[in-house]
């Protein structure tokens, strides 16, 4: 049962949309650590709203940037590995346990509340990717 929930929305600075993956993921990791705390441990689910070739629950390579993102690298890179590297660089003990496409995440969340849910659709405004941290409580 979902007993506790806290969230924060962070906009990705425009200059990071045209930089490198290392810069983008360093920013994401920094904001995740700022939110969860430097001492936080536990499983982290990564919602990544771009088409990936997903080979495992916790592994997927980016196929291409859309929605105005135009980083100099990315396609062909494992985005979980990128996030893990960035989190480790900040000394975080958070563990990326799952890579989830945003529609799959929405489907899971909705089915958790109502098992009649059989489809999910995202009709969004722009381009934010986010990481959500699950506390071990």
């Amino acid at each position, binding site marked *: 049962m979902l007993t506790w929930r806290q969230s924060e929305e962070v906009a990705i600075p425009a200059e990071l949309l045209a930089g490198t993956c290392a810069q983008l993921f360093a920013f994401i990791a920094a904001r995740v650590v700022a939110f969860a705390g430097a001492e936080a441990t536990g499983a982290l689910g990564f919602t990544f709203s771009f088409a990936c070739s997903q080979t495992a629950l916790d592994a997927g390579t980016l196929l291409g940037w859309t929605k105005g993102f135009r980083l100099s690298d990315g396609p062909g890179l494992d985005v979980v590995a990128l996030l893990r590297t960035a989190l480790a660089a900040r000394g975080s003990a958070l563990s990326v346990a799952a890579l989830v496409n945003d529609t799959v995440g929405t489907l*899971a969340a909705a089915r958790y509340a109502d098992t009649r849910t059989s489809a999910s659709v995202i*009709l969004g405004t722009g381009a934010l990717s986010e990481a959500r941290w699950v506390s071990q409580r």
Partner: protein
Amino acid sequence: MIVNTEWGGFAGASLPRLPADEAVDAASANPRAQCFEKMVAGLYLGRVAAALLLQAEAEAPVLGPAAAAALARPDALPTPLLSRVANDASDDGADAAAALAEALGGPLSAPGLARCQEACSLVTRRAARLSAAGIAALLRHAGDTDATVAMDGGLFEHHAAFAAGVRACLAEQGLGATLRLTPDGSGVGAALIAAAAGKAV
């Protein structure tokens, strides 16, 4: 099994394109890709409306050169503004007029305001109906036309005329699907899946 359709990349003869769509595509970060997305995603709706208005202005000016110059700038009509204009159903359109005056650097004439409102409403309506078409196709293909569909995304959550348009179009198509807003569903879902993965290990 879960199928992720990535329908943003849909293109083809059944998806008619306007000169405004060509203009938005050419100016985008990924030309010739994500054709459907560029007609329904919030990121692009304001750009399509601006392109329509510029085209109309060239043929029959009502906005004036200053407003036209403002419209020609990148992201002159951000989606929250388009939403505000399209959702103003009042007789005098005062809120729409205020929003546009701020964006275009000065008050509009009555015909100018009317044209902007129409462009914003048309773009909203097209995006809503195209989105509904996608949902209808999905449900019909799955043989599940009375499905409960989880919805997320700022456009659906905050743009009332858009969400109403999607629902109305589905009803018009005779589909009994329930669209349930699941705010921040993608984030919560990722956390749930991560938690489940942790337990499985």
